């Protein structure tokens, strides 16, 4: 039975290997830098003395300088858990976006004595949207690979894109991140483009891309997430009935938020969101029904009230 919690994955082992991998003689300052950069918060207290006092006899010491006794670092062979997880990866429907069939077969051949960690039908996702991307589409694959390469090489790309209105558009953008949505089962490109109002953030669904061309002549641009519009805040009161508090905390896990207890049964929660996520957040909040109230008289609260008024006015079908 494989273990996930094992010393072989320990961060101290990885840091020690980084230190050993440093070429030539190194001093205490270099070891300190590596431990500070890659260690946990208190690794300077717990790990650094072990290394700098050579308690593990990994170094030849000479005048406070250290050289690996092992002539460098080591490579750790893949564990069974890692191999089994990799094998599972190769059977994922998205694997073809990254690897050619031939490469997948080669790796599978190397791992032929290993069983996958799980089969994809060991899992059943009951609420994933049904209109996910077609990862086997050659055009999709082509766009994905070009964008991936452009992000890694920091190149701009020209994208031919099918808009919601059905019209095709061309855009030159600075690709920043490829975002996968587990709920929508799709990839989106987070990118920046110059507009009349300056640099603007765009989110484009890959399935709407018709063609991508990577540019070799890139204008100077520094991409920073701070370029995205300022986040908005919505304040909620959560009434902890029907396990609403826990459900809300989990549902809004990927939003920046701040929660305080008001009394035994109610909590105030500030959620910070990007304007792009507003409709999604509105729908999620409505789904909690009376267990969540949007506070204040701001824009978001008005959106909720508008929906409720529309519903109230739709008398038909509502029992008196």
């Amino acid at each position, binding site marked *: 039975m494989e273990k996930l919690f094992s010393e072989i994955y320990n961060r101290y082992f990885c840091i020690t290997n980084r230190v050993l991998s440093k070429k030539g003689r190194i001093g205490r300052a270099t070891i300190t830098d590596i431990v500070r950069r890659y260690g946990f918060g208190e690794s300077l207290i717990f790990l650094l003395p072990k290394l700098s006092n050579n308690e593990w006899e990994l170094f030849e010491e000479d005048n406070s300088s250290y050289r690996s006794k092992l002539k460098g670092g080591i490579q750790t062979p893949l564990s069974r858990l890692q191999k089994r997880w990799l094998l599972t990866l190769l059977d*994922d429907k998205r694997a073809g976006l990254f690897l050619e069939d031939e490469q997948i077969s080669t790796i599978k051949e190397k791992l032929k004595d290993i069983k996958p960690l799980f089969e994809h039908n060991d899992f059943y996702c009951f609420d994933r949207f049904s209109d996910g991307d077609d990862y086997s589409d050659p055009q999709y694959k082509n766009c994905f690979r070009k964008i991936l390469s452009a992000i890694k090489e920091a190149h701009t790309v020209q994208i031919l894109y099918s808009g919601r209105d059905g019209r095709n558009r061309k855009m030159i953008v600075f690709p920043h991140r490829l975002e996968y949505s587990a709920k929508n089962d799709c990839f989106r490109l987070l990118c920046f483009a110059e507009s009349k109002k300056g640099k603007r953030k765009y989110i484009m669904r890959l399935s709407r891309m018709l063609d991508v061309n990577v540019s070799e002549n890139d204008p100077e641009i520094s991409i920073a997430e701070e370029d995205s519009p300022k986040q908005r805040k919505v304040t909620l009161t959560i009434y902890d009935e029907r396990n609403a508090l826990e459900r809300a905390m989990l549902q809004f896990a990927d939003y920046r938020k701040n929660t305080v207890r008001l009394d035994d049964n109610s909590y105030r929660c500030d959620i910070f969101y990007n304007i792009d996520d507003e409709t999604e957040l509105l729908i999620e909040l409505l789904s909690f029904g009376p267990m969540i109230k949007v506070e204040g008289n701001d824009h978001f609260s008005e959106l909720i009230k508008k929906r409720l008024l529309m519903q109230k006015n739709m008398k038909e079908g509502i029992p008196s």
Partner: protein
Amino acid sequence: MSDFHELIKSVDKCRDYVRDFFVYGFKSRSDFPGKSARTYDDERRRIVSWLNEYVREDFSEIGRSKNISLQIDQKLLDTNPLFRVWQAASFTDRDLILHFFILKILEDKEAAYSASEITDILIDEYALDADLQTVRRKCNEYVEEGLLYTRKEGKTLLYLRDLYFNELSENTTSLIDMIKCFSLDLPLGAAGDTILSMQQEENSIFRVKHSFPTFTLEDEILLLLLSAIHDKRQVELKIQSNRRSQDKGYSSTGIPLQIFVSARSGRRFICMYHQGRKSFDCFRLDQIKSVSLTEEADDKVLKRARDHLEKDRPYVWGVSFYPSVRGRGRLQKLILTINADDEKETHIYQRLVREGEGGSVEHIAKNTLRYEKTVADVREMFPWIRSFIGRIKELKIYGTDGNKLFEENLQLESMFYKDLERMYRVYGL
């Protein structure tokens, strides 16, 4: 002198602390009754140490207590910081020394040494104080982990190292990209994260929306359950609610069949078949405190359970196989009439199709859509139906046997409308 250390022997003790700190973000010492102040302080200090740059500490406005929470920012979305919990296993000095020297000695793919030869090399070439028994034990541990394998030559057992990552393919760049992406999304992504750490790689390309960092804390439970599913074993689960610390918990036994996952909440459940009752139960993985694999499941029973699951699953909206409010018939049919502008609001039709879990969607009149779905427990659908507030013309629920409709389930309908009325009151409408 404190015996505090960053590393731990088992995740069990810290799991609830990590979860409670980061799911809620407002829990402080008083929220952990039954734990000593020292235990609380040590656990808290350790978590801050592991996750330092992701942790925000502040004072609660109420009670003036100190809270820690996970600081969600753009940087956080490139990784799952809670994977660090799996990198904190404690070890002895001897473990670390043997790890580096044994793997160095066996670096060459063809190098095959007995435990006794490895011990000699450690003593002669590296001047280490090594004994045969400890070296053999460590080599066998590494065979168990899959880092080494053995070959017999005569009566001698030789140890060789297994595959390095870069031996999987001539070019591993694309494979690394794939691991960066999937370790954030696929179950047991922490295993992928260990590969990235060993390859000294960090993700700065991919991001996963709707990802739920805390669920990695259940990954050891998940590993056991997957093992039971594949080995066709029955399990005994110890279950305890996360909400009530006084809750003593309970046990449940059954045949594990499939992991149910919610993409919207990140929650994962094990769907189990209870042989005695001939029924299914789903348990949240984050409420399972331990899993014991028991006897092998009978092949005939297992086949019957799987067939039964295939048949019932289309009627399960989330994880409930049985109606919580009964009427005539085992199933409930929901008919939802929705108002949506035929020209300007076509996205509503699309939402009903893509989010409606296979329910039928029909355009029945100008600006009017009808959605129908038969499920085991219609109450599980209410949160989704509420997301259409502002457009709901009519909601009807009937008992059904799958074909014939029985009488209207007014009790269920009134539950929905009472919540709606309460919302109007809450907002003063």
